[in-house]
């Protein structure tokens, strides 16, 4: 392809092109449905999805179900991330612990979170904790390995310097040297967990726990595809918000770099 004309135009022009592209896409989609080429159960019209979206906010369903899902998500992330960071740190710090835990984790790691559903039901019942447990599994392994890798990869001469300068306690060194040096890697792990966890939320709710995942599954069973799409939009928008917020926080935490 010879030269991309879009790159040659102004910022305003680019925005105009992008908006037109989205509007054109929606228009084409609406047109196809309007022509009757697809029955609504295969492809609902964007206007139908938008109407449903507004309805679902109006009748309180979206705020209520999103509230449930965010609770599962937050709890799962807190469990998974805190345990992952802690264990990753310990394993990187202590050779003995690494030797003992590494084979166990290597054995459990390949089991996908959703394979734990039967145990989630038996151990926690159909509860917030059960969904949080499934979400925490993914977050746990990701942060564990990113923390472990981050700590292993720090410049250990810094630790030697600290010891020579008189800082003898392990905790002091971990807090003042190891954690700050490994922070970029830890934060990358947390950010990946945020995405992975949000994807697990939908699946983790599918065995009967109230939330947007279950709502989508139920609506699909009733062939109310406009409802399914409205909730897909919710998932996308919320994750966009979460990711954006985390990036802002990350930038602030790593300003020293």
């Amino acid at each position, binding site marked *: *392809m010879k030269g991309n004309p879009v790159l040659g135009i102004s910022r305003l022009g680019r925005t105009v092109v992008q908006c037109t*592209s989205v509007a054109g896409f929606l228009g*084409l989609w609406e047109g*196809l449905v309007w*022509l009757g*080429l*697809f*029955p*609504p*159960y*295969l492809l609902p019209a964007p206007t139908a999805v938008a109407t449903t979206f507004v309805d679902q906010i109006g009748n309180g369903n979206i705020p209520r179900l999103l509230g449930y899902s965010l609770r599962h998500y937050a709890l799962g992330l807190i469990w998974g991330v805190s345990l992952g960071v802690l264990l990753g740190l310990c394993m990187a710090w202590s050779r003995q612990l690494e030797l003992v835990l590494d084979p166990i984790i290597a054995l459990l790691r390949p089991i996908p979170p959703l394979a734990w559903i*039967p145990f989630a*039901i*038996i151990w926690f*019942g*159909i509860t917030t904790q059960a969904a949080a447990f499934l979400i925490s599994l993914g977050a746990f392994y990701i942060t564990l390995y990113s923390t472990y890798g981050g700590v292993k990869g720090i410049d250990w001469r810094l630790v030697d310097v600290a010891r020579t300068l008189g800082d003898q306690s392990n905790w002091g060194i971990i807090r003042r040297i190891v954690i700050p040096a490994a922070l970029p890697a830890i934060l990358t792990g947390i950010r990946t967990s945020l995405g992975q966890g949000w994807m697990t939320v939908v699946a983790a709710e599918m*065995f*009967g*726990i109230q939330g947007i995942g*279950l709502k989508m*599954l*139920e609506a*699909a*069973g*009733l*062939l109310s595809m406009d409802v399914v799409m409205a909730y897909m939009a919710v998932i996308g928008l919320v994750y966009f918000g979460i990711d954006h917020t985390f990036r802002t926080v990350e930038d602030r935490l790593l300003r020293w770099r």
Partner: protein
Amino acid sequence: MSTRLTKVFLVLFVVMGLLQVPVSWALDKIRIGYMPILPSAHEFIAAEKGWYRELGVPVEEIRFSSGPPIVQAFAAGQVDVAYFGIGPALVSVAKGIKAKVVASGVTEQLAVIAVNSFADQYQKEPNRKAFLQFAKAKGRPLKIATFPPGSTPNVMLRYWLDKLHVDPVKDVEILSMGASGVRLAVLSQKVDATMILEPIITIIRHSPIPYRIVVYGKQILPGQPGSILFVRQSIIDERPDIVEKLVHMHLKATKILVEKRDEAAGIISRKIGPEALPVKVARESLDSKALHWVANPHAIVDGTMTYNRFQVKLGTFKKGVDPKDLFDFRFYDRVIKAHPEYKGY
């Protein structure tokens, strides 16, 4: 976007559109959707007996955990024939899927099972008070597990609660899941009650957990339609001979389920999995009071309409389904005329 890419997209959309246009086709395979529960037993028998060979086209059996996923597969064109509940059939037709109920399977096949403390309470006061008492004692509402919204057990559960003036959101907590989920949730005593069907009813009765039957389907809605045989309209139009054979097999299987229960129990156990459903339990579930093998589709029309009116009330869809759009009695009537020995089923 380059013009070439635009053209590719346009062609793609046109092709996708054309796929929707019904064209005359040769049927190369029939895909049958079923669930690992007793209302699908006709399918198990037909498959095990090798009757499908008589259809003259290969058959692919696809297992689902509840009715609503079969509706999705039906909508996506991945299932042609389904053994599922009247609920999902109504949802499909109301949403514009072209398919018909050609036979009934079982009726009044449901039961509510609950933890003894609630069952005792309900026995004393079969009304909303029993639910409120339970919630007061436990500090939380009664947790009831059942199939997802749109499924027959889910709709019947709501119908029962509605009759008792129980608020389905505030007075109880309804948890929706597939067959194995319900089974696991009840057997591990993580829920207090369930609206469910055979063989799960008998499996729960066989387990040592302190749960028992509170009410049967026929007490909730007499003549309640249960499972049905649902066939895609294109097959009805293009290959009525195959549909007639399917209905004939369905009747033959019904006769076995009623008259040769020992044999049927063996087949059902093998199909669902002997580890999940031993032959003994399968045999016992065939004697269950929650099973009425009724193949005659005429017999479920009234019940179906009552059920349908309730779905409209629930807001599942805006207007009711016309029986003309839902039932096709021709095949059943033809088979009964040719084989009077099946009369009465």
